[in-house]
Structures are given as C-alpha cells and as structure tokens.
C-alpha cells in the first residue's frame, strides 16, 4: 500500500504543471486543457484522502467534480467558438477588449 504523501506529491506536480500552462500558454484552448489538468490533480487528492480516511465522501465528490468539469468544458468551448467567430482568434494577447 502506497502512503498518501506520495499521492499528494504527484497531485502537486500535476497541479503546478497545469498552473504553469494556464498562466503561460497564449492559446485559450491550451489554457482550458491546463485547467482540466489542475482539476484532475484535485480529484487525485480527493480519492487518496478518501481511501486513507476510510470514507467514501471523497469519491462521491470526484463524481460531482467530473460532472461540473464536463459542464465547464462544454460551456467554455462554446464561448471559445463564439469568440472565434466574432474576433477570428483565440490568442489571448489579441483578446483585450475588457482591458481597455
């Protein structure tokens, strides 16, 4: 049996790789994929904690996280499509309408 610390360390690595992508990639779709990576890191911690504590609440929470992530991906990608149709790009440097 692997102790929970290793799972948390793996999740930390995944989370910060995802954060790096979300901060430094300039493509909106790449940003969204990095966010999915971060969500998966959180799911891993939920399941590790659930197993370590002898409770199933973490696994249930992961199911809800997956549900919300699916909704988030669908709506986010719909917004990306609408944005691309309107402005012709998904490059974040060009999308600065709200920045004035």
């Amino acid at each position, binding site marked *: 049996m692997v102790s*929970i610390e290793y799972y948390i360390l793996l999740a*930390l*690595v*995944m989370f910060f*790789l995802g954060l790096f992508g979300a*901060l430094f990639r300039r493509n909106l779709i790449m940003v969204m*994929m990095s966010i999915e990576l971060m969500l998966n890191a959180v799911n891993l911690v939920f399941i590790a904690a659930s197993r370590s504590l*002898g409770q199933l609440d973490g696994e249930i929470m992961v199911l809800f996280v997956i549900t919300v992530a699916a909704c988030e991906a669908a709506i986010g990608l719909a917004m990306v499509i609408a944005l691309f149709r309107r402005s012709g790009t998904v490059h974040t440097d060009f999308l600065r309408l709200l920045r004035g």
Partner: protein
Amino acid sequence: MLAPSQLVFHILAALISLVSLCVVVSRHPVKSAIFLVVDLFLLAAVYATMEAHFVAAIQVLVYAGAIVVLFLFVIMLLNLQADALAGFRVSVFEGVTLLASIIGMLIMAFFTLTGGSSGLGTGTWTVDAINAAGGNTMAVAVTLLQQYIWPFELASILILLAIVACIVIAKKDKPSVANPSSTLAAK
C-alpha cells in the same frame, strides 16, 4: 525493495508527470489533447490501483471519452495552428503569481513530507466494510443514492442548464448581426 503495488505506483507517477509536462509544453493543441487523453487513462489506472473502480471507469468514459473529444472537435473546427512557444512574454503579474505558487508548493510539500503519517482513518468505509458491502461500486452507489441524493439530482439540473447554455452561446448570430469580415478580426 519495493512492493509490487508501490512499484506500479512509482512507474505510473513518473509517466503521469512526464505526460502532464508534454500536455503543457506541446506546441500543437492536437498533440496536447492526445497527451491529455493518455494522462487521463494513466490517472484512471492510478484510481484502479486505489480500488476506486467506479471512479476509474467514469474517468475513462466521461473525461477521456467525452471531454477531451469535445476539445479535439473544437480544435479541429477552429483549425488552429501550432503557436510559437519561443516568443512568449511574461508579465510581472504572471511572474509573481507563479513564484508565489512555487513557494506555496514547496511549503506544502515540506509539510506533507515532514508531517506525521496519518495512516488509515477510522471512517465507516474501511477496506473490509467495502468488501462486505459488495465491492467499491456498490458502496459508492449506496452512498451516492442515499446520503447524496439531492446533490445527485441537482447535478442533472446543472447538466440541463449547461446544454441550454451551450446551444444559446454557440449558435450563429442573426444574419443582420453576423458579419464575416468583421473589423474586430485581429489577424
């Protein structure tokens, strides 16, 4: 000497770290999406080694099967080209955020490694209790459909809302509004 389960975990962890790095640094979005599928499959394998069988199945079906395919559809619909990683700029805000995050990660890793091992807790669903209830899937089903029935039902409303929102957001504008040669195009 590592036990077989530990050896499997270490191999999977190394692969997951490597593939996650590939997801983030791949220049072409399609390659990133393919790496993301591989990453999600490997995570499902980790869940399976933790005896979270139902979540592992859902991970493969929903995450790798639906969400990433949605990403791939959109990437191909928009016909995105590989973007240049070489010329990317870093603003002060992003640099400071990343630096603070890395420091936070190191502090968290320090406390994770030096803190006392919690070991198995005293929850009601120990490994023996799960086996007695008929396996992980049965135990998850009992918990989900009894204790968490209202969040479960609310999730269906959330999905319905997401469907309607997607249709409204992504449908074409009215012909009078739509203007293919928009001056907003910033190419």
